[in-house]
């Protein structure tokens, strides 16, 4: 019988939303395959949050909890996951395709001689096999992929899979003895520099992005103000990143970040193919552009043709008004 191991990521001893998505997806696959599902968490103080996983259907959480696991280390973390995978004889490993997951999954593929499917946006079972769908060519095409190796790894794109709450399950927590030594921290995080308290575009449920149509960096606050009222994150086109208005960490697109929020608002962005590559999987797209023929309108669900400098402040005010009611 198959066994599924779900690696549940935490940072600063907090569970991320992607952790629930991973847990729920593993549980669903387990039900479909009749497979046992176990979760694995690594951290310095995560037992409290590990028990929350029961509400997502996880019956057993393996816990690698030691002070030295406070900060992520590629070498140490991937060794723990590979060891646990072997120890538990898991043949499917589910992980989220976050910064940590993307860093850790390839070494696991090598350690476990396992085929890895990156950045899955759909995953299903057909006749006992797992088939994953993932975007390629920056979302211009989709492929269905099967893994043929004994152990199979699937990394799930954050924000795509639905966390599903389940009643009446408490997860049993079992500590694992990792035997990790200092030599396993060859790659060591010395410091984490948080770019103020801002949400990252890849994690936000609403993303408001600005482009060259904003005319100058002094107007970018219009985008930030709107994002703030909506509780979202601000993003940018490459044109304004290259022009030095915004940092690269905010760039959305083929050579920036890929986002799939529920709502994406593109302001003064023409919709070049490389920009669309990073945001076309957003659930609802709004475009504000003064050129009615701008390609962004081809994929927008709603649009206003007009001057962003007038429309955006009005939009922010309107949202403020409606949301306070």
């Amino acid at each position, binding site marked *: 019988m198959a066994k599924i191991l779900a690696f549940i990521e935490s940072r600063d001893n907090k569970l991320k939303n992607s952790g629930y998505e991973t847990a729920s997806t593993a549980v669903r696959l387990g039900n479909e395959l009749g497979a046992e599902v176990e979760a694995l968490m690594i951290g310095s103080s995560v037992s409290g949050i590990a028990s929350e996983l029961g509400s997502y259907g996880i019956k057993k959480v393996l816990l690698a909890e030691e002070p030295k696991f406070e900060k992520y280390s590629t070498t140490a973390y991937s060794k723990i996951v590979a060891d646990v995978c072997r120890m538990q004889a898991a043949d499917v490993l589910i992980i989220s395709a976050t910064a940590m997951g993307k860093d850790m999954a390839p070494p696991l593929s090598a350690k476990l001689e396992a085929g890895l499917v990156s950045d899955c946006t759909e995953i299903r079972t057909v006749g006992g096999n797992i088939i994953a769908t993932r975007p390629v060519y920056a979302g211009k095409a989709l492929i269905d992929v099967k893994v*043929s190796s004994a152990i199979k790894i699937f990394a799930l794109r954050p924000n795509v899979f639905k966390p599903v709450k389940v009643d009446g399950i408490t997860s049993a927590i079992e500590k694992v003895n990792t035997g990790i030594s200092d030599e396993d921290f060859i790659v060591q995080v010395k410091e984490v520099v948080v770019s103020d308290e801002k949400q990252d575009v890849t994690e936000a449920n609403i993303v408001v992005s600005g482009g060259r149509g904003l005319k100058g960096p002094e107007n970018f606050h219009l985008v930030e103000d709107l994002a703030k009222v909506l509780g979202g994150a601000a993003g940018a086109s490459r044109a304004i990143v290259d022009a030095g208005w915004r940092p690269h960490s905010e760039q959305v697109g083929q050579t920036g970040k890929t986002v799939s929020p529920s709502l994406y608002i593109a302001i003064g962005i023409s919709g070049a193919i490389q920009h669309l590559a990073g945001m076309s999987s957003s659930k609802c797209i709004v475009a504000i552009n003064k050129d009615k023929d701008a390609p962004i309108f081809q994929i927008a669900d709603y649009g206003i043709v007009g001057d962003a400098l007038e429309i955006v402040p009005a939009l922010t005010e309107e949202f403020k008004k409606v949301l306070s009611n």
Partner: protein
Amino acid sequence: MKIAVCVSQVPDTTTKVKIGSDGKTIDPAGVTYIINPYDEFAVEAALQLKEKQSGETIVISVGKDSNKEAIKKSFAMGIEKGILVKTDAELDSYAVARNLADVLKEINPDIILFGKQSIDYDDSQVGQITAELLGIPSISVVVGMTVESGKITCEREIEGGKEVVESTLPVSVTAQRGLNNPRYPNLKGIMAAKSRPIEERQPTYTENKTEILSMKLPKSKPKGKIVGEDVSAVPELVRLLREEAKVI
């Protein structure tokens, strides 16, 4: 110091994707191929290291004869030696990494540079798998890097910030945009690249662990609604987002 760079050859970012007759790959007709954009950051990082610390640089690519173009582009920028592991087979990331690791084992570089991802299959795997197969550490999505007395310190992007990461050498690094500004090849470089030999090798591993069953285009969206032409459309847009799209 020995510095290796691994490069792939990919369709230009403006490519309009059409599905090929096998239903599993894209139709290559009319597609222009370029060196993977992220690999230019890797090549530039290799050249800067060489200029600072002296040493030799070598570029490796696994793939078709046409991958020589990516190698030549690296030559034109300043890389000195090139190896093509020549195969027409569609290899997955694990298989590519196995071939790279077999070549790199012999070369035994102090630092191996990769792009963070090939913009064809967007796998983000090859660099880190290769490193693991070689038994050396890897640091991915790097936007800043200093190498000093056998130690490397990198800045890498994570959600909402950056991590400062340290490692010993040998090490492998995958480059993210922001690491540097790749140089444009000058005429002398381009001319020199033309005559520089590329060593060809046979693949050492051709078994895939993943299988593409089919490729399709994403569902095209029905045309959206233009709500209006000026500020007066704002209340209606907000209403639609709340009541029709239900996203707010």
